[in-house]
């Protein structure tokens, strides 16, 4: 999962979307599904970190009303 750290927000989000559609496609083997799921979770975290970071920066300057 290390490499997912370098991903940009958009890359992580798009890969997450791909994983979801693969899982929903139902063609993946159990082993693949497990791996996909794990990667999906990691990517989701990356996205959330990006968003939380951005929000924090914004709030630092302008606490949301």
């Amino acid at each position: 999962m290390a490499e997912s750290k370098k991903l940009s927000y958009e890359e992580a989000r798009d890969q997450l979307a791909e994983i979801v559609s693969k899982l929903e496609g139902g063609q993946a083997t159990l082993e693949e599904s497990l791996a996909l799921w794990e990667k999906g979770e990691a990517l989701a975290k990356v996205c959330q970190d990006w968003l939380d970071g951005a929000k924090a920066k914004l709030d630092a300057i302008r606490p949301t009303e």
Partner: protein
Amino acid sequence: MLETISESPVPVRVISEAIGDYLGRLGPVWIEGELSEVTVRPGAQMVFMKLRDTSADMSISIMCHKSVLSAVEPLPQNARVVMHSKVSWYAKNGSLSFNVKEIRQVGIGELLARLEALKTQLASEGLFDDDRKKQLPFLPKSIGLICGRNSDAEKDVVANATRRWPSVNFEIREVAVQGSAAVVEVSAALRELDANPDVDVIVITRGGGSFEDLLPFSDESLLRLVADCQTPIVSAIGHEKDSPLLDLVADWRASTPTDAGKRVVPDMQEELQKISQLRERSFRHLHNRIEFERAKIAAYLDRPVLKAPHTMVTSRFDLLQNLRDKAARSMGHLIALGREDIAQLSTSIRTLSPQATLDRGYSVVQKKDGAVVRSASEITAGEELRVRLAQGEANVTAN
């Protein structure tokens, strides 16, 4: 040229004659200028006056017979005139004087015609072209202001600019804004301010006035100077309807001094508001963008494959169960079928098997080779035969 050397100088009279000779060659001339300091002594035949140049700071003293002057009276103050005069040299005391034979006032019509001619001339030279116009600075370090002495025009420009941008600063030059001195003083101020690096824009302004009053602002030398200036020039002369040629050469024409004051500086409040609006809009955009993306991620996480990943196991487990059930059921089914088959077979064997007949007392005779004997004729005496009875069998020999 008169060659002289210090060792053999020439007497005064030679010089004087030479000057008289030069001037004589000039002959009578038509001179244009502005009449001023007209002094008429009671009873005197001759009248003395000064004729000032309209652009340069120069003048000549002239005299004429009082009838020459009265022929063109009444003349307004600083009248623009054309004179026919011979230059006379009074050798006795080495003084020069202009003896004027005829004076004519330059009328408005004439002035207008001259102005139009100048206008077409300057236009043909491209001095009025748009691409020459320089951009006014958004926020000038300081504003050059050339205006009449404590005139309303000055107050209007300063008041309006200061209201919009309180920290504006001016370089004010109060000069003559009409009459022959105007061109000279405005030009001097213009050169000085144009050279000043801190002055980013120069406003030339004066209040309303007569056609003659505004004439200096259509003066060719002033217009050419304005055209050559590096600093952008704003012309704010007279009222809305007044339009001296300066308006055409300047980089921007203000209809009134007030208009000029407003144009040269931005409105502080307006600018501050614009900035805060921009900050607000960029913050709003970013905020919405984050919310939008957050929702998107949440949506992904809500999808069953991620929200309840166990399904990948349980669904397979169910599938497995399902398959096993199916297997079990089909096995059961097969077994049942098998049993049925067996049952049928056994009954059919039973029905087909001769046992029942044997039970009823019949018996089956077979030859050695197993063939069943159906008629006595098939038996030969002494032949060994097998007899199958309900219970067991016996070997017999035919007799």
